[in-house]
């Protein structure tokens, strides 16, 4: 049987055994459910607050000076918008502004002849508060706002809506429709643009920048998550094989390189499947975000997106083989995890350095870390995402070559350690003994 076939046999077995494990199924399908429930718990209060806010709030208006000239209950931007202003807006092609204003009609204003009448209504809780426009309002702009003696932090007490109401009535008949539209709605939309370090103006700006940062950071988080979860399965499997004494049967059929590679491939595939499932759920859940991103003219960092998978796989194999090699010296799961922890921490290193790397993605530190196997995948991703043009092709290719060579070496070293670790069932061998056996 060929080496590849033996590796494939081990990989298939590990993959099928892992994906049928209760722990794997719980993590794979339970995690989105947990996150959904968590979001629901967090979102419920906000939902109820929003629902409460969607009910019309009625405020009183006492206007002895006749500034607003309200004869009956009115809404800011409602169909009771002053007719002459409506016509002016429509004539000047500002239907959108009308629609936007009309959309914001949750606060209604009820006229009262006197402050005492309005106060009685507030005490009787028929209104939420009331505004008094003093006779010198037009000269001084001061307004008295009355509310119940139970302050709410998040509520402006209808002040914003009342200001809109005032604007509409103050503008009506005094300026033309276009000016009125701009005063009522000064910024109707923002088109973001960004200036590159070379002075070029590119479309996108904020949203694009966010995507350019989110992609590599998401890569690092998913990578770390995948390494940690899959390494758990790797170590558990190895510890179980030692405890169950299956090791001799395994090594009598396949050499340590084949066993280690097969385990890495099988469990790596299980880990990748998990990540793909989560990403799919995320995309299905967040499908509504797509049109928003498209309309925001987001520039997708394609170079980084294309590099993501090969870098992910190479880096996973690199860390996985080292974790398995050192973890195999543990006589049980707990010991194995302790021994492999150093690699978990190393894998988290790029994520810890995200801040400085984002500040200067092509600086000396980033350029040096590009060539270090433990950081190269994350740093190349970050640099390619932030500004692909500043990442020379030979840097990307060289870093990938170094990573692949290191992975090959890590698998060789991991396999040697794996053989020694698997066959060692008593006291842990000394460093000198490990070196001696590794040479054989």
């Amino acid at each position, binding site marked *: 049987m060929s080496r590849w076939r033996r590796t494939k046999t081990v990989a*298939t077995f590990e993959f099928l055994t892992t994906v049928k494990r209760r722990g794997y199924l719980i993590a794979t399908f339970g995690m989105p459910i947990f996150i959904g429930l968590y979001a629901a718990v967090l979102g419920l209060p906000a939902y109820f607050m929003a629902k409460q806010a969607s009910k019309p709030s009625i405020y009183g208006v006492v206007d002895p000076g006749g500034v607003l000239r309200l004869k009956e209950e009115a809404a800011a931007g409602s169909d009771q918008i002053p007719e002459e202003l409506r016509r002016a807006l429509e004539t000047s092609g500002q239907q959108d502004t009308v629609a936007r204003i009309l959309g914001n009609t949750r606060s209604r204003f009820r006229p009262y002849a006197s402050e005492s009448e309005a106060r009685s209504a507030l005490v009787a809780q028929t209104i939420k508060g009331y505004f008094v426009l003093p006779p010198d309002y037009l000269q001084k702009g001061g307004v008295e706002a009355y509310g119940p003696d139970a302050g709410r932090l998040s509520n402006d007490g209808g002040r914003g809506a009342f200001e809109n109401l005032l604007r509409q009535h103050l503008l009506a008949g005094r300026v033309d429709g276009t000016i009125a539209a701009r005063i009522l709605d000064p910024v109707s939309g923002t088109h973001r643009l960004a200036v590159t370090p070379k002075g070029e103006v590119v479309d996108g700006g904020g949203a694009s920048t966010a995507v350019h940062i989110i992609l590599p950071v998401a890569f690092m988080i998913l990578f770390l998550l995948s390494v940690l979860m899959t390494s758990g399965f790797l170590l558990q499997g190895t510890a179980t094989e030692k405890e169950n004494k299956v090791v001799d*049967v395994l090594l009598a*059929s396949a050499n340590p390189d084949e066993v280690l590679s097969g385990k890495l491939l099988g469990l790596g595939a299980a880990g990748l499947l998990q990540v793909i499932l989560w990403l799919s759920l995320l995309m299905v859940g967040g499908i509504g975000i797509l049109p928003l991103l498209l309309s925001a003219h987001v520039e997708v960092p394609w170079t980084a997106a294309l590099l993501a998978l090969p870098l992910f796989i190479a880096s996973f194999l690199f860390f996985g083989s080292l974790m398995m090699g050192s973890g195999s010296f543990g006589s049980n799961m707990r010991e194995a995890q302790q021994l492999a922890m150093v690699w978990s921490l190393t894998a988290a290193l790029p994520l810890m350095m995200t801040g400085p790397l984002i500040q200067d993605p092509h600086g000396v530190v980033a350029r040096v870390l590009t060539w270090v196997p433990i950081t190269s995948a994350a740093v190349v991703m970050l640099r390619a995402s932030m500004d692909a043009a500043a990442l020379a092709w030979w840097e990307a290719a060289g870093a990938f070559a170094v990573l692949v060579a290191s992975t090959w070496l890590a698998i060789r070293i991991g396999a040697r350690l794996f053989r020694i670790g698997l066959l060692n069932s008593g006291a842990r061998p000394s460093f000198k003994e490990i070196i001696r056996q590794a040479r054989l």
Partner: protein
Amino acid sequence: MPIVAFERLTKSYGQTPALQGVSFDVEQGEIFGLLGPNGAGKSTLMRILMDIIRPDEGRVLTFGHPRTRDDLDRLGYLPEERGLYTKLTVIDVMTYFGALKGLTRADARRRAVEWLEKIDLPQVVSWRIDRLSKGMSQKVQIAATLMSEPEVCIMDEPTTGLDPVNVRLVYDLLIERRKAGRTTMLSTHQMSQAEVLCDRVALIHRGRLMVYGGVDDVRRRHSRPEVRVRVRGALPAIPETANAVQGAGGEWRIPTEAGGEPADLLRSLIAAGTDVHSFEPLLAPMEDVFLRVVTEAGYEPLA
């Protein structure tokens, strides 16, 4: 051409020698017994053959050439410390072990079912391993080892812990392999097993090969020259019977002189007018051979 040949194998664990220049051959189609006290180096030798550990010196030849990784597909191995994946089903584990030996998954699955029937355990096919008794588990592992029909099968204490009925079952399986021309190399502490089952044996003690050869030949070489005679009446008073010891029912054990042939003794008895009912040259049991060799060399396991 020997199917397996060990050449000057030497292996140490730290300062402790486990094998010291061991060389012997195993022929095709035989059941070869590997004997020796605990810690003699038998398991080390088997693990070196299976390339689980590497020798410090010497080499292993299989099928007429230095052993390669691909040769392992033609070798089966039942280790001393039995191991199965306790959380998996019997069929899944057997299929995996079969696939590791080069069978396709479908073929491995089919053979697993056949072998479970062969070892009288068809009902456990979908059981989880941790549901099996110790004996059942051992039989499943033996079946998993034999189901790929390896040309050479190395079995470390295959019958330990089995009841007599199942020991007989394993014997039958091994004899069946011999009839099919397949080789079995088994390690055992049960000398009666070696006598009944093995064609040839090697006895290792303190990492050295002490005894090697055909079972009868070894027994003969290590036997005291003695015959068992049943006669009517008393033994004649001739020089050859001077040291005879009487047993029950007219049975006598008569040591033959050094270099003397049993046939000469029989002729002397008949010439003296003895009515000889039975005459049997005695071979030392393997257990005596084992005890003598090990005791003379000093019984102190090395590893």
